[in-house]
């Protein structure tokens, strides 16, 4: 039995790095300090998987055969797409982009169905933001818009935002006002001083009106009709936002995934930008899954763009709607899919799933999933952050180094991708 301290949980964008992991008899039995979801991640991944390292067409095969066949498939494909990458290390993500470049393939990550719209707002407007420690140390007003942190990022409120005590907020919760804007009550609601409940699909209008109020424009009450929010509520919020010392707006999928998408995030980004005329205000997208922030970062430094990238002309091109996974699959475009650390068969809309049923899938995953079951070639890989060292990025772009806690007989995503890359190179010569 041994313990590993300061272990890093890579399930959600909080990337808590204070977990104390206990290993007994080759499995993780405890993950102290982790939230429920984090505990499940450590325990779920910290045990041997009873799966073959490779299956081809449902039959167990060797790693070499799997790599060979995967490389062959990819080289022969006319329009291969690489997707996923959120639950793996940056080291693996870098290999995936290298592979896409070599294959002149398409590569997209979970960002496109999560905070792609936030990335698009950044492209148009910029982003006044900060790291989470600034929230802990300075924020006296926190607004969660379209986010349910109690269930998506359970330690967010205690570790970084609501109750955390900091240099200029020594009283923690008492030194803050918490506002929650969501279309429905959630377990997060009880943390709020102020609850605002818009009707679905009205976020853009509300953010735009809020921006107007902040800028001193006259907004008619009738403009908010049907929004579920009164002018009084919005005016009050505008006043608080301007009067705070350091405000932070956390935006969630409630903005990115609803009517408006990148227009919603653009409105939020513009609002926060404009409040900076009056006081300090920052915005942080509540990046959700694992190392999705890492894959954005890797893609951006290697190609210039954060998601939805196509190498078909020999250099990176970016176009959401054209090179993003859901669109490509919905239009029946990809003819081979390499899915890494993700389960799109289960997580994408039905029409996208339908295309995945029609084309050969090469899947790399730590556990069995609908995607790995449907895959023509399925690799079982070791978990980054539990079986393998690797880099992970927190939602605020802070990089941390995950250490290996427990050995695994399975290869890492990085190793598999790197070997596929080498094999592809050999085939092309």
């Amino acid at each position: 039995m041994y313990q590993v301290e300061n272990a890093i949980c890579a399930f959600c964008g909080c990337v808590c790095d204070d977990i104390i992991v206990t290993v007994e008899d080759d499995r993780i039995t405890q993950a102290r300090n982790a939230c429920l979801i984090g505990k499940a991640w450590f325990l779920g991944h910290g045990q041997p998987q009873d799966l073959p390292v490779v299956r081809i067409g449902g039959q167990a095969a060797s790693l070499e055969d799997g790599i060979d066949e995967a490389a062959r498939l990819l080289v022969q494909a006319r329009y291969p797409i690489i997707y996923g990458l959120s639950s793996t290390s940056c080291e693996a993500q870098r290999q995936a982009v290298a592979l896409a470049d070599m294959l002149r393939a398409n590569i997209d990550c979970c960002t496109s169905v999560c905070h792609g719209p936030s990335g698009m707002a950044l492209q148009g407007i910029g982003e006044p933001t900060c790291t989470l420690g600034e929230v802990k140390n300075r924020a006296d007003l926190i607004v969660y818009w379209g986010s349910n942190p109690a269930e998506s990022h359970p330690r967010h409120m205690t570790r970084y935002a609501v109750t955390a005590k900091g240099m200029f907020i020594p009283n923690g919760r008492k030194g803050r006002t918490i506002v929650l804007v969501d279309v429905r009550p959630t377990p997060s609601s009880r943390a709020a001083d102020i609850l605002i409940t818009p009707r679905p699909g009205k976020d853009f209008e509300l953010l735009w009106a809020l921006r107007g109020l902040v800028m001193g424009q006259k907004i008619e009450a009738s403009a908010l009709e049907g929004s579920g929010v009164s002018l009084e509520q919005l005016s009050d919020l505008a006043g608080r936002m301007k009067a705070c010392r350091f405000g932070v707006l956390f935006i969630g999928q409630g903005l990115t995934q609803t009517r408006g998408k990148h227009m919603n995030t653009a409105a939020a980004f513009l609002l926060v930008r404009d409040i900076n005329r009056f006081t300090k205000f920052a915005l942080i997208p509540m990046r959700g899954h694992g190392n999705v922030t890492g894959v954005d970062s890797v893609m951006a430094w290697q190609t210039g763009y954060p998601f939805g990238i196509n190498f078909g002309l020999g250099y990176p091109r970016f176009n959401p709607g054209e090179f993003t996974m859901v669109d490509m699959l919905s239009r029946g475009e990809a003819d081979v899919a390499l899915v890494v650390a993700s389960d799109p068969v289960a997580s994408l809309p039905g029409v996208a799933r339908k295309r995945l049923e029609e084309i050969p899938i090469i899947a790399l995953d730590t556990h069995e999933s609908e995607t790995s079951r449907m895959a023509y070639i399925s690799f079982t890989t070791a978990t980054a952050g539990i079986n393998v060292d690797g880099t992970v990025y927190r939602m605020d772009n802070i990089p941390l180094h995950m250490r290996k806690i427990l050995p695994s007989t399975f290869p890492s995503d990085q190793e598999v991708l790197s070997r596929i890359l080498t094999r592809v190179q050999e085939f092309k010569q």
Partner: protein
Amino acid sequence: MTRILHGEVYDPINGINGELRDIFIRDGRIVAEDPDGPTIDVSGMVVMPGGVDMHAHIAGPKVNIARKMRPEDHRRQVYPRTPFTRSGVGSSVPSTFTTGYRYAAMGYTTAFDAAVPPLAARHAHEEFNDTPEIDKGFFALMGNNEFAMQRIAAGEHERLRDFAGWLLQATKGYAIKLVNPGGVELWKFHNNVHTLDDEVTGFGVTPRQIIRSMADVALELKLPHPVHIHCNNLGIAGNWETTLETMKTLEDRRGHITHIQFHSYGGTPGGLFHSKVVEMAEYVNTHPNLSVDVGQVMFGDTTSMTGDGPLGYLLYQITGRKWVNVDVETEEGCGIVPIEYKDKSYIHTTQWAIGLEWFLMVQDPWRIALTTDHPNGASFMAYPRIIRLLMDREFRRECMRTVHQKALVKTTLPDLDREYSLYEIAIITRAGPAKLLGLKNKGHLGVGADADVTIYARDDDLEKMFSSPRYVLKDGQILVEDGQIRQEVFGRTFYVNPTFDPGIEADIRKHFENYYTVCFENYPVQLEHYLPNPAAVSCGT
């Protein structure tokens, strides 16, 4: 084993000024005479050590968010994949592979990132590992570090020194960088400093104290490069006084004032500014403890990216263009805004002229480096054009005819006839920066030096000549031929290993518990993992 024969060699560190000499390389180093080995005949060509860029923004979180922010800039310049190179993009904020290839294709073999927040040092190293060809390193930001400021306020100089030593070790950085010391901390509540004696509210220190203390720390730690300072009040009319005060604060301590062009403005805040280079160059000329790099502005669209958060906001207010601000907990910050310098603008012409005035008025080329503060003043790809401006008086005059004339005549540029020689260019683009950085095996072609060699075919158009070297060798390997990449290698990462009293760690740990959101144990960069090709540069001697 390679022999480079019959070239016209410019190796200022070894006093070689255009002599016809042969260069011999074995195992990646310059060696004395060797009769054997493959030969490259470079008759009629100019041979210099590989270029050394001592101040650019090429890796790390600030650069990467700028990449994310500028898809339109990427589309202007795309680089398809070749058998030797990864594909990439970028005009002002190139992708990492492109950054390495473009530097090499221009004959530069070493480059330093000027400003990395320690909390994200790992990110800079990851990007370096995807930046081919060049050797690299970065400067670690410390001028707004809350722990450091607390030590200074308490008069705990030894503990400050230990902290700085610890921080450089933890980040695997190369030097101490100050950016708007004190001001970026205040920006976190929307304030700034305006003079060297303004108090950094809540910390009881002034910029002057930070500058002096850190300058001493750099000397005491025996770092190869002295404190590297981005002065307060960058870009503000009248800031020349702040810069002069900063230089005076250093007294006779070694210090490097970076992108000094942006800090040379007379006038009053809010108004038009004018050049104060005459007065300032006089000071630099008479104070051998100081070195500068220019931060030359060139006309065109580029991206401003700086650790100076409030400056970023100011640029957003002036230009109205998109704006990124990132405040990094307890440490630093940054601001990013696209910017276009126009030749018909009074202000931009003044900036352009000021930069050239600096080059032409500083007498000792060993203490002035050629930079554009890439990409703030211009992309590093503008260096060949700047070289032509410095060497070719007629070309300079031609360019002067296209700028804002009223602004131009307020500067002394029209009266400056000096032309740089190849020898002097070799100093300001390789020999000088290498010496200033304390890199003993760079910037020269003496025995024992790293075999980084750039060979230019002579051309009357000096911009063309310096844009497209005939050969570029790195550690004796030919990377570039005729401006084309022929091989991809990955270079070293330079870092320093200063000694410090580990007793400081207990205090740092407490600071982490109180104010950081990452654990102390998880902060230091893991050498084996993030520096696959580490090159420690010793502190001392």
